Every structure is written in C-alpha cells, then in structure tokens.
C-alpha cells in the first residue's frame, strides 16, 4: 500500500514514530488486554501499524503542542454540545426556524491534508456542513459551507476554528 511514498522515508522520524506507536499500543491494550502474551503480540502489531501509519501519513517536523491540543479538544467538546443543542432546538421547534443557505469561506489554507482536517473538524461544528471547494475572490479558493442559519456569523466562527486548529496541526 502507498508504495509511492516509501522512497521519501529514508530516515525514520523517531519522535513521531514513538508517539504514534504509543497511541496504537494504547489502543491495542484497550482492545486485547495487558497480559504478557497480549503485550508481546501487541508490540508486533504496533510495529506493523506504526509502519503503515508513517507511510500513509508521513510525519512532519512540527513539534507536538499538548496545551494547544488540549485547548482544541475542550473547544471541540463545547462546540459539539452547542451544535447538538442548536440542531435539536431547530428540529423540535414547531415553526422549524431554518434560514439555510450556502456560504463561501475564504480559507487561508490551500487544498491538502490540513484543509481536509479542517473541513472534517468544521463538519461537526454548529450549523455548518462543508460541501466542497469553490473558486473565491483574489486567486485563493474558498470552501463552501451549507449553513442552517445564514444570518449567524459563520465566517467569523470558521476563521476562529481555523486559527485554533492551525495552532495544533501543521499548516501546509
């Protein structure tokens, strides 16, 4: 799988590899247990999965930022609650208060993995579902969003999300 990237990985990036291996070993122990035999097999499986991970998603030189990541996670949890409440309120309201429409967000990031992560992230945010790329003004292209309420400050909210996310994940 992903043969085309194997040549670019001459030197194994140690630190990201170790972090990923630790995470995957954690998943293994959650699923399979912590007995001696479990751990032995787990090490082999982790090595395999880490190798696959480094091939599919080449490691970057960016340093990990636990504080920023925690802030992102907390923000995500809070926004999930807001998003759920927002949709539930609109769905259960007898008047069905919807002002749906399409908004183009002039993203700072170019198409690529970071943007994919951003659209995936914002698809779980209140009132927005990304529906594709759109040619925006001034050369840079934008991301089109379907919004539940076009009068809400969607673009400002998305810009805030992008700023928070780019503090954690590498910007290409």
């Amino acid at each position, binding site marked *: *799988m992903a043969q085309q990237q194997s040549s670019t990985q001459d030197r194994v990036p140690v630190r990201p590899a170790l972090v990923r291996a630790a995470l995957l070993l954690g998943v293994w122990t959650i699923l399979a247990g912590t007995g001696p035999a479990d751990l032995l097999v787990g090490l082999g499986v982790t090595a395999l999965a*880490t190798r696959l991970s480094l091939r*599919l998603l080449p490691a970057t030189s960016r340093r990990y930022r636990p504080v920023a990541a925690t802030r992102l996670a907390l923000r995500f949890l809070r926004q999930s609650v807001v998003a759920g409440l927002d949709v539930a309120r609109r769905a259960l309201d007898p008047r069905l208060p919807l002002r749906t429409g399409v908004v183009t967000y002039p993203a700072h990031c170019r198409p690529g993995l970071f943007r994919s992560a951003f659209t995936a992230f914002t698809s779980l945010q209140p009132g927005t579902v990304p529906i594709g790329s759109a040619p925006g003004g001034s050369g840079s292209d934008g991301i089109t969003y379907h919004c539940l309420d076009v009068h809400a400050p969607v673009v400002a909210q998305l810009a805030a999300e992008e700023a928070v996310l780019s503090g954690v994940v590498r910007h290409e």
Partner: protein
Amino acid sequence: MTIVPALDLFVAGIVLIVAVWTVAARDTMSAVVGFVAYGLLLALVWVRLGAPDVALTEAAIGSGLAGALLIGAATRLRAGEPSVSTERLGGAGRVLAMTLSAVVAAAVAVVLLSLPDPAPSLASEAAANAGVTSLGNPVTNVLMAFRAMDTMLEKVVLLLALLGVWSMARDHAWGGRPRSCRRADPEGPLVLLARVLPPVGVVLGISVLWVSADHPGGAFQGATILAAMWLLVLMAGLGDVPAAGGRRLRLVLVAGPAVFLTVGLGGLALGAAFLSYPPAWAKPVILVIEFAMVLTVATTLGLLVAGPPERSAER
C-alpha cells in the same frame, strides 16, 4: 410483560419492514441500501440469540463487505435499469408465487414451533472437550478444532470464488489489475480518513482475531476489518490493487490454506487423525493457523470486492 420481549418484537418488526423494503423497492439502489440496513439490524438479532460471534460476522461480511459489493454493482448496472418494466410477471403468476412463498414460510414456522422440547444440543460436548484446546470461546473451538475441516474447505471456497471472479476478465486484462476504484477528488474527505484510520483498523482487526481465543471475535471478522482498511486505501487512491498475475500475491493467497493443510497432514503423520492437534500445543497451533489465515482471507475478500481484472498488469 417485561420490556425485553417487547424489544424483541420491536426489533423483529423493523427487520421485517426492512426486508419487505429490500424486496419491494422500485429502485435497485434503494433496495441495496435496504439490504445493508437489514444486515445491521440482523446483527442485533444475533446478539439477542446469544451469538455475538455471528453478529460480528453478519455486520462485517453480510452487511458491510457484501454491501460494498452490491452498491458497486448497482451503480454500474444503473445505465440499463429503466428498460425492464416490460417483462414483469403477470397477475396470475404473482399470486402463484405469493402462495408458494407463503406456504414455504408457514411450513418453516410450523417446523420451528414444533421442535422437540429438551432441544438436542452439542453444547455440553463442546464444553466437556474445551479443555483439550484450552480456548475459552466455544465457537472458535468448533471452527478451529472440532470442525476444522469445514473451516479449511471454506478457505478453499473463498479461493475458488476468487478464481471464478478472475476468470470473468477479458483476454487482454488476464492477470492484470481490477478497474481502478479511485475517486475523482484527490483531496476529498475520504483521503484524510484513508490516511488516519487504517493503522487503527489494523490494530482492531488483529485484536479481533487475537481475543477470539476466549472472547467473541475470530479470524474472519478480523480479516474483514483488514480488508475494509485495504479497500479504503484503494478507494482514496493511495495505492493500487496488485496484478492478479503477481507471484507474491498468489503466494499470499495460498498461504492460509497451505498452513492449515500442513498442520492437518502433520496430525496425520504424528499418528493421530487428519487435523488433530497435539494437545499440549493446541492453542499456539490454532493461533498460527489463524494468523496465516487472516492474511489470506483479508486479501481474498478485498480482491473479491475489487472485482475481475480490467486493466493490463503494467502501469
């Protein structure tokens, strides 16, 4: 009375509604989607019937992998779809078919309701002999030890099906690669998933096999998860399907049955019966067979979904 029988009735009702939808839906794609939903609901039924191993298999293979296959076929057949309304069965034939089906269903129902009451069961035998393999999951015991012959032949059936699918290739594509399942958008949402999920999927798939010694799980269920991860990578365009003529691929495809057969013949050579394991080594031997099998089965399942070769091997 209590809430549980009511829940059973509710689940059975939904299963039947979705089954009717699968048969009656006008649009084939809708019917296929109905069938996938039916498979997932059926997994719930299997849990209620005390068979979590079967539930996993049904959800993974019966619903997931078969669903992917059927959706792909329905998409490709869409072009010829509208032209069939001319040859539906007439009213009389329809009534006849309905009567026949109702009679068969009623007969099955009567048989099921009049089964003998202390039901015949091999459960106590399975429990009594579980010590031989020291595996805690009775279904794995049956699959890998008591009826290992079935399981070995099942691998062979999978391979034969793959041979059948491959032989649908046109002459120029023989030994080549299946049609590329790459999607149009190279930066789409699928790509992120295909870069992030497979390592976790590999850990999950192998753990499903590893825990199956004592808990619900198994080589097939694990292999299906691995096959799904492979297909995800392929669909995102991050890799290509190996050519059907490749030697390494063929080696992987026969590895599982070959290990199984070797162990079986080994049992024969050691003076016991075919596929008998030395009692002290039963558990490790079974795990070796399962690990060899999971690779073969995952590859075979992925190739079955990918379909017959349609491009030449080069490129």
